[in-house]
């Protein structure tokens, strides 16, 4: 299939594996973080680690929109959904995210009107068709999905639709990366930068990572060869003792981002002073709310949102996994009490969560390709 198979070419992967192996300095361990959950998913789905020598460890970062939603926000959303005449809508990934009293799936089974949509515009469509209902869109995601929420708010305002609102949970990626860089318990060598977020924010926001922290960043695409090539580019920078931001995903990511999308976000949303992240705690200026001019579309103002705070289950070590301190299988409850079927932590819910990806795809002994195996021995 065109535009897919070219990026999954095993022959090219072997060639890259040989080059990556050649760049490994004997005795040195490398820890590279893929920030984005989409990358984590690709890495496991295609068995990409088979191409890497043992000395390179991929650390899975916080860029999974579902994984960072704290339990309290799920409880709030279910509370909203159970108000009279409310139709709650959200992306499919949200359906199984556990709150303290169950997930959307359970609330739906108990009679609450919760519907899965593929775009916030579909929520708007539902609002138009159900003028006697109040339709709420639970907005989640990083800068990748924020523009579509923003455009939906703008359209709702233009059309004067008064039964549609947004429960805004959009988060921003840079504060999370900074929190990880400032975390004392982690030593990373470089970052595989998020691809889709960067289509919106561009590559400049990462420059502080290279400049102030001396870590190379390569913004990467989502096909396995994209990621393998990005790893090669990071290893090359490390070998040459350089640290700059590079763009491997230039076919999609403009260096300065998407100005129109950024404008729409700026028009409709403003930074919150702080926001709670699952496992990472409160991070300042790390999330978006609906701006005052569009207060009529802000579910948090229209409804009485309890704003509950729920401590993560004690056994859950999602925070450590999101920061890359623990590998998924090192969590105490991984795969036994916490499985994709009965997730305790959010990392086990989304297919982009590190734990779900490892559980669904990675529970096996790695059979490294010869190029990588040889480097592992030396």
């Amino acid at each position, binding site marked *: 299939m065109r535009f*897919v198979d070219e990026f*999954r070419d095993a022959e090219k992967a072997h060639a890259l594996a040989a080059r990556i192996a050649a760049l490994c300095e004997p005795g040195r361990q490398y820890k590279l973080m893929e920030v984005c959950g*989409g990358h984590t998913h690709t890495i496991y789905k*295609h068995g990409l*680690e*088979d191409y890497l020598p043992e000395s390179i460890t991929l650390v899975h970062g916080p860029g999974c929109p579902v994984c960072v939603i704290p339990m309290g926000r799920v409880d709030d959303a279910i509370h909203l959904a159970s108000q009279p005449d409310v139709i709650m809508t959200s992306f499919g*990934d949200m359906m199984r995210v556990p709150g303290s009293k169950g997930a959307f799936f359970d609330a739906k089974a108990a009679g609450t009107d919760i519907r899965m949509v593929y775009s916030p515009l579909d929520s708007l469509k539902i609002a138009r068709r159900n003028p006697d209902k109040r339709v709420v869109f639970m907005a*989640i995601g990083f800068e990748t999905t924020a523009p579509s929420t923003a455009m939906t708010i703008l359209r709702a305002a233009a059309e004067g639709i008064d039964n549609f609102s947004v429960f805004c949970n959009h988060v921003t990626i840079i504060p999370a990366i900074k929190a990880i860089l400032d975390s004392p318990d982690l030593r990373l060598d470089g970052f595989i930068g998020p691809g*889709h977020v960067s289509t919106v924010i561009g590559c400049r926001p990462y420059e502080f990572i290279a400049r102030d922290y001396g870590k190379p960043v390569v913004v990467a695409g989502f096909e396995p060869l994209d990621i393998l090539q990005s790893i090669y580019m990071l290893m090359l920078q490390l070998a040459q003792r350089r640290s700059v931001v590079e763009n491997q995903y230039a076919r999609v990511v403009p260096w300065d981002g998407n100005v129109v999308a950024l404008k729409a976000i700026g028009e409709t949303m403003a930074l919150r002073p702080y926001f709670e992240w699952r496992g990472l705690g409160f991070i300042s200026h790390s999330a978006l709310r609906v701006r005052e001019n569009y207060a009529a579309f802000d579910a948090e103002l229209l409804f009485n949102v309890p704003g509950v705070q729920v401590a993560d289950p004690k056994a859950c070590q999602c925070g450590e996994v999101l920061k890359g301190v623990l590998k998924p299988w090192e969590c105490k409850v991984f795969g036994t009490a916490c499985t994709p079927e009965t997730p305790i932590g959010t990392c086990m819910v989304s297919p982009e969560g590190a734990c779900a990806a490892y559980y669904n795809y990675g529970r*096996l002994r790695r059979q490294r390709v010869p190029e990588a195996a040889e480097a592992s021995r030396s």
Partner: protein
Amino acid sequence: MTPGAAHGGTTQDSSERGAAANPAAAVKENELPAHAHGHAPTVSDPEQRVLDRIDRARRRRPRVREERITMSHGSGGKASQTLIEAVFLEAFRNPLLEPLDDAARMDVGASRLAFTTDSFVVSPLFFPGGNIGDLAVNGTVNDLSVAGATPLYLSAGFILEEGLPVADLTKIVSTMRAAAEQAAVHVITGDTKVVERGKADGCYINTAGVGVIEHDTTLGVAQARPGDAIIVSGPIGDHGVTIMLARGELDIEADVTSDTAALNGLVAGLLSAVHGVHAMRDATRGGVATILNEIARAADVGVVVAEKDIPVRAEVRGAAELLGIDPMYVACEGRLVAVVDNAAADAALTAIRAHPLGAQAGIIGYVTDGPAGIVQLKTAFGGTRIVDLLVGDPLPRIC
């Protein structure tokens, strides 16, 4: 499917710790064959210890934890399996039910019969390549066929929603007649109920079927042996993708049609041409991936398949890529998965390809002796990953 209880599920946390310190004891405790872990686990390997612990957890007796039925219980994946084993099998347990195969097999007088039932709730009722009527006949015919039986008689039960156009019902029923004629079966009994508007979605159909088993082969996924070849009879995922697109919620158009078809002719051709067919399944809900997992679990073997050898139409692959779903989990309604003795694999492939429905059949992988219970995929990219049971419906990724 082997009920999880057969593997014993009583491992407590304390004994788990003991087991972790002594992997040999863990194997003994769970009565697993020595090859179960594919390699000898070593105490110095913490990741392997965790994998072993997970393996034991997965073999515990399944329990329904939800307070209510959710859509996951109907997806054909893990939750469905848990529901069936924990609720239905617990209540009805008997030797004929216990194998949980597509059809039950029993001796009546001098005959060996196969008996099965299936309900159809597809939405929309009409879709490219067929309607609920084809599915209702072909689904039951196929369940009998893969049990090694020649399908003979069907029942048809209809639950109709007030307001359903009679023209629609007539169209569905005439399609059923045509499908029955095609499969050489007769609908010999039936039932009709009507419920108020809003209490059903147009038309639900239940069919049951009886067939006679003429070949003396012992079939069942538990019969899979290391070395066996795994054959699929054609491109996978056509039906599921067709339905997803026919719902019109995705604003994607593609030239795909359902693969709904009766497999009895193809199966009869295979069984008369080849000895050494160990198991057959028709890949419906949960797709081919679910069947491969059933094989691995029931026979306590490993399964290794190669992505590049799995036939998937470009249109289906494209739609699945866009939606972020894996064709391996997408339903088919006329695709056979056969587990065949290695020595008979080529002959079986030839026999399947000789039938029009099997023209694009291929060997997608092999049964191995371990790691037991695990399905591994050699990806087209050249890596390795697990193909697990599906949890919940396949949901598209959001970014």
